[in-house]
């Protein structure tokens, strides 16, 4: 019988820290090629369309930024939550409520169109996201209710609330009774970065700034240190005089604010109106991004771009090769498994041991 055995490295390996994504990528190429072969497609063409074609055109790079922006912004906030052991899996709901709060300005005050409109929308969205994330935080800190359940359930509630708003009170009166708010005026629209080249808006830049700021906060400030201490050992944190329940609020509301900001960026920058569905599951995908980025906000930038690429590449492969969207999803799952598996190399050596030789194997 053959077993896999992990041996802890005395120190984490800097070599594998850098190399593991490339090893994972290499494995994906090999196995991806096999999948394409099995489907009767040219593996080289398949891999080219999946990984290179989306990066080879400027407009497509812009689309990559549009897709990656919300993922990075939400994941950066989630890093703070997960590092402090607060299991916020309701970022999707905070994204939606942030978008609702931010959209109040163009929808309820259509006449208010100044340079202040957009900044105010962004702030409102952060407030909205933070308040909505504050609910599971409050229920956890005050009533001891498990945040995995409450934050997840609140996602569904937020989706239904949005649905009710855009079909009812906030429906565009000129919209033939179809769901959706009025389209936002230019003053309430997050502008495109380089309009002549593509559609990417400043939301991507905001996401990068947010990720760097959260990284700075975690790595260089005392409060950031508190996050790590409380996450690793609540007891040690208590002795150091840190409050665990204050941290619950802090981490939830920070990540909620960032999810809310991502929500309004998407609505104002990419969609242009509040609709009944505004997220294809960004809040959930961002959980994967946060862990792929090893809970390091800078890592989430790379991870967010990678995940975004798998969506774009998947479409390119569907169109050019006529493979189905399910194959694309299988491919995506495989890539994630490889990336996660190879990350183990950072902290462990992997040995394959056969049982009979156990003891003599070194």
């Amino acid at each position, binding site marked *: 019988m053959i077993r896999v*055995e992990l041996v802890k490295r005395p120190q984490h390996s800097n070599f594998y820290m850098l190399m593991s994504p490339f090893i994972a990528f290499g494995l994906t190429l090999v196995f991806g090629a096999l999948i394409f072969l099995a489907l009767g497609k040219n593996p080289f063409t398949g891999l080219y369309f999946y990984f290179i074609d989306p990066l080879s055109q400027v407009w497509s790079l812009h689309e990559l930024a549009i897709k990656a922006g919300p993922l990075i912004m939400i994941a950066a906030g989630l890093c703070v939550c997960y590092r402090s052991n607060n299991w916020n899996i309701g970022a999707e709901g905070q994204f939606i409520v942030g978008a609702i709060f931010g959209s109040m300005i163009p929808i309820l005050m259509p006449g208010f169109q100044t340079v202040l409109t957009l900044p105010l929308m962004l702030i409102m969205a952060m407030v909205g996201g933070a308040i909505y994330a504050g609910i599971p935080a409050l229920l956890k800190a005050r009533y001891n209710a498990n945040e995995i359940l409450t934050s997840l359930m609140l996602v569904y509630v937020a989706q*239904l609330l949005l649905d009710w708003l855009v079909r009812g009170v906030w429906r565009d009166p000129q919209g033939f009774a179809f769901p959706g708010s009025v389209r936002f005026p230019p003053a309430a629209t997050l502008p495109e970065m380089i309009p002549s080249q593509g559609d990417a808006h400043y939301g991507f830049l905001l996401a990068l700034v947010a990720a760097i700021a959260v990284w700075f906060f975690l790595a260089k400030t005392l409060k950031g240190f508190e996050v790590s201490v409380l996450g690793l050992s609540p007891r040690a944190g208590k002795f150091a005089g840190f409050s665990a329940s204050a941290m619950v609020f802090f981490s939830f509301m920070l990540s909620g604010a960032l999810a809310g900001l991502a929500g309004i960026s998407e609505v104002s920058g990419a969609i242009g109106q509040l609709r009944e569905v505004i997220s294809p599951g960004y809040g959930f995908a961002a959980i*994967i991004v946060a862990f792929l980025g090893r809970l390091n906000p800078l890592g989430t930038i790379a991870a967010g771009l990678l995940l975004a690429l798998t969506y774009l590449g998947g479409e390119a492969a569907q169109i050019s090769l006529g493979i189905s969207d*399910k194959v694309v*999803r*299988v491919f995506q799952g495989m890539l994630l*498994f490889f990336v996660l598996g190879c990350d183990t190399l950072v902290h462990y050596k992997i040995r394959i041991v056969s049982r009979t030789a156990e003891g003599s194997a070194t």
Partner: protein
Amino acid sequence: MMDMWQNIILTIATAATPLLIAALGELVVERSGVLNLGVEGMMIMGAVTGFAVALATGNPWLGMIGAIIIGSLFSLLFGFLVLSIATNQVATGLSLTLLGIGLSGMIGEEFVGEPGVKLSNIEIPGLVDIPLVGRLLFGQDPIFYISIALVFGVMWFLFKTRTGLTLRSVGDNHDSAHALGIPVLRYRYFAVMFGGACAGLAGAHLTLVYTPQWIENMTSGRGWIALALVVFASWRPLRLLAGAYLFGAVSIGQLHAQALGLGIPSQFLSSLPYLATIVVLVIISTNRRLTLMNTPACLGKPFVPAR
């Protein structure tokens, strides 16, 4: 009138059964210290397998068994990654869901629009005609009975057997369990596979009992609800039974409220099951000691035996 109430109760039981089974499996997994967020993915794999095998063989029982086997095999993929390679459990579980939805769609492509084979009800003549509860107790589908047996089986296993006690100790403190010579990873492997088998069976309930047909993505988030219910139950099987039926009852109740034409926005009614679960959780969580006692302390933490 009597008939109507009996029908409503039956509808609730059918809605609650898949949630209950999937959640029971996850409960055992989490008791062993592993958090598998891939329930949705394993469930949909079970759903498509159950449908396909039943259609191919004409025998829904074989479909059910196939779903159980595929569910546990599929969970092995997750088990290998998080147990043998010590990957992050949250991310691996989420990726498993992505993979499951994709794979099931691929497998199921040719079954779209085909009516499935239904697992017929087990009826005990005579007793089934007892008013109000007859059909509920003596005339339901086999998977319903399995779900109830599973509740008590898991209860007995976790709290009355030595192996169950060991499994819980693995989830509470894997280091001291290891020091005592308990094969931590082997226990977790079996727990993960049990979880997969249950999720597979829950999926099969959808395609063999609930709605015998295959449609992509037809689990529609039920795996997530099952996950939440485990937390709701604070890792106790009986509370899980209560939670699944509460969720089922509110979901069905809101449809009846609509059919009565009460004029309440449907979005509000649709959100009631989620809100109700939160409210009840808050009420039962105030007993901090009890909750803490039942929470597996090592939940989600990887274990790598030191050598």
